[in-house]
């Protein structure tokens, strides 16, 4: 009864996921085209290289971001500076729907992205024009989930849980569930370290390891891993105990009552 080895295909290409995928493709191609030009321009005159105000990215930035992060990304009372955060950070925050937020929050929850893939890449370009370098959007290649599992257990499981279901951190922070993240978003989070998450630069996890890790996290959200039936949110023994009491014991006590009532007739 060997099941066919599950291939690495995403089971359902939701329109939004398709959007995100499109964003990934655009982003994967974008930096390659931009890289030589930017290295040539260097960071000597970033303001000069900024696109004109009629640009889509500039327009979106001014509409949605500038009120908190400042017109040139210098930061303000309500939002941190964006200079030097890097394209990976901007892409992560916007493509997971965490930015823009309508009010100040400690930790923005994951939502559907507000912008289209093209808009996101325009925004990323605009913010990186503020200068300061920072991690690029990583290019994720297919990896080996086996070694990815070991990296995950050693580095990610303490906060996100071995099942990737997420867990509470200190001070009201939360390590979110990983089931909605794309491979690129996982890689971005690893390189950027959003929120309380530590940064894992290239010296700690090289690109091969990052590919393996992203492959394992993609694997983790696969429903075929819940081979035993309903996973109960992968919340662990207490959820199972609740089911044992409410479903199993409830049914059995009802059965005993029924049998007892029939006997008394």
């Amino acid at each position, binding site marked *: *009864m060997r*099941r066919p*080895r599950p291939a690495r295909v995403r089971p359902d290409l939701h329109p939004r996921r398709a959007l995100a995928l499109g964003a990934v493709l655009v982003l994967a191609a974008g930096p390659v085209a931009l890289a030589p030009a930017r290295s040539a321009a260097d960071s000597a005159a970033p303001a000069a290289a900024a696109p004109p105000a009629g640009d889509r990215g500039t327009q979106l930035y001014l509409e949605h971001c500038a009120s908190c992060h400042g017109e040139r990304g210098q930061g303000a009372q309500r939002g941190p500076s964006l200079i030097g955060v890097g394209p990976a950070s901007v892409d992560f925050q916007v493509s997971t729907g965490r930015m823009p937020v309508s009010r100040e929050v400690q930790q923005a929850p994951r939502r559907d992205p507000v912008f289209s893939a093209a808009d996101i890449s325009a925004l990323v370009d605009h913010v990186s024009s503020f200068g300061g370098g920072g991690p690029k959007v990583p290019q994720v290649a297919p990896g080996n*989930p*086996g070694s990815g*599992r*070991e990296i995950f*257990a*050693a580095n990610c*499981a*303490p*906060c996100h*849980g*071995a*099942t990737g279901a*997420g*867990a*509470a*951190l*200190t*001070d*009201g922070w*939360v390590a979110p569930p990983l089931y909605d993240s794309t491979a690129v978003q996982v890689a971005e989070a690893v390189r950027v370290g959003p929120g309380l998450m530590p940064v894992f630069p290239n010296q700690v996890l090289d690109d091969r390891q990052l590919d393996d890790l992203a492959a*394992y996290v993609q*694997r*983790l959200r696969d429903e075929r*891993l*819940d*081979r*035993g*039936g*309903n*996973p*109960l949110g*992968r*919340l*662990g*023994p*207490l*959820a*199972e*105990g*609740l*089911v*044992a*009491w409410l*479903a*199993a*014991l409830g*049914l*059995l*006590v009802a*059965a*005993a*009552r029924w*049998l*007892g*009532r*029939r*006997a008394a007739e």
Partner: protein
Amino acid sequence: MITDRLARALDDRLRLSPLTRRALAKIFPDHWSFMLGELALYSFVALLLTGVYLTFFFDASNGDRVYRGDYAPLDGATTSAAYASTVRLSWDVRAGLLIRQTHHWAALVFVAAIVLHLARIFFTGAFRKPRELNWLIGVTMLTLALANGFTGYSLPDDLLSGVGLRILTSVVESIPLVGAWLAALALGGEFPSDAMIPRMFVAHVLLVPAVLVALISLHLGILVRQKHSQFPGPGRTEHNVVGSRLWPSYALRSLALFAWVLAVLFALGGLVQINPVWLYGPFEPAEATSPAQPDWYVAWGDGALRLFPPWEFRIAGHLVPGPLFPGVVLGGVTFLALYAWPFAERLRAKDRSAHHLLDRPRDHPVRLGVGVGALTFYAVLTVAAGDDIIARLVRVPVYDLLSLFRVLVLVLPLLAGLLAFLVARALRRGDAAGIGELTRADLRRAAHRSIRPPGADSGESETPARDRSGERIEMWPEGDLWRWRYRDADRHLVITGSRAVLSEEEAASAARVAYPGVDRVVVPGPPPAPPPGPVRAALRGWGRAAAAGSLLLAALLNRRRDRRRQERERAEPAAPPETADKASTGGGRT
């Protein structure tokens, strides 16, 4: 036929029939709450059945083993043999995952059924003399069930259970002076020791189950030896049992419950995932996972560890570590209190008499209040063990929840216990039939101390001293024997005595013991049997029709055969009479 002869042969050699007859005639009360213990028993049977299958494939060793199988992320990884064989059981062994999950669900339901059974025994006072011994055995079985649950949870050597085992080891090590020695003795060395899995395996599949089987036998043996307890009611006294006989009615009902237990457990095992160890990964001392909880029945200990403030102090230079109080002291006090309760209650009430009639929970407000308070306390601790899960789901800072639970664990049990006490008193004093009918006046009256209407403490008397207008005992001769029955015309209740006796006087005295103060009359002949139910009537009708039909068919066939034989005889008139005789006998045999 064969079973009959086998039974006869066995009886000739072992003289089983007196024993069997007595056992089969044992009366069990019909109330459903008496079946809660059976739920635990049948879960245990399911545990044994599924556990045997698991031992065929489980490799109880800490040694290295390379997993090769269908679960790709672990394919080719070197883990402990225990973990690798558990993943193999879950992904590569036929029906392995179903049996493994059913085993785990059965363990959860087993302990839950024990707790329910314990609550029933406690609140109805079924632990009183002469049943203290069975109470002690039952509490011992609860501790063994917890121990075996924990070892079973730890055996797969996955990351989650390894974290739990680490915590338990630390709790044992927190005992001053002897803790570290005890832990080293149990594990055969420092914490992640090589002897850990084999030792837990032997305890899990051999030692504890053997003791459990012995104690269950003793538990049931004492139950059979003693009369079954029962709730008070019409016709029920300290000296009789009203209910169904073991054979056939109660045995069938019990088997039906067994089928229910198996059905529910296997349905859960097939449909709801439990303990996905392949996702958790193998245990490595340097790794951890979060959120980490134990199975529900030890979660109260985990919750206590989370809630208890980190107090540490030194006595004569010896550190008394923080986990000692919530870990060791609380567990010890819990089980000591359970063991001691029947004796404490007997001392307090100065009640040395035997009780076969149960209390209703309301009859004993103090006991009810203490029990409800204790259950609330452990329930809050169990919920507190999941504080990190709750914090993530409702997005509340985990330390705020912790403070909230610290208050709740002290306040809520007191409130719940007090409320239960008041409701019980109000129910006992007033004339409301249930909680729904209680009025505010009832509750207000319950809050006062000394009002005691007459008849408030009538729970101890043998029979409710109500008017007995419709009740009577009917006795009648049946051949050489006498039988009797109790009849309550108002309640349409008829209870027939289970034993026939030799004389009218014996029947009268038996009825007097069971129903003192009820009039006895001799009635002519056996009273008519109750009208059969629709199914039985239909079955009986069909049976009669089938019997009549087959008789008719047999008669027709016979006639045809006779006619043929006569024709044959007519056709061969020369045949001698002996051969004709032979033919007829031969025909009769076919």
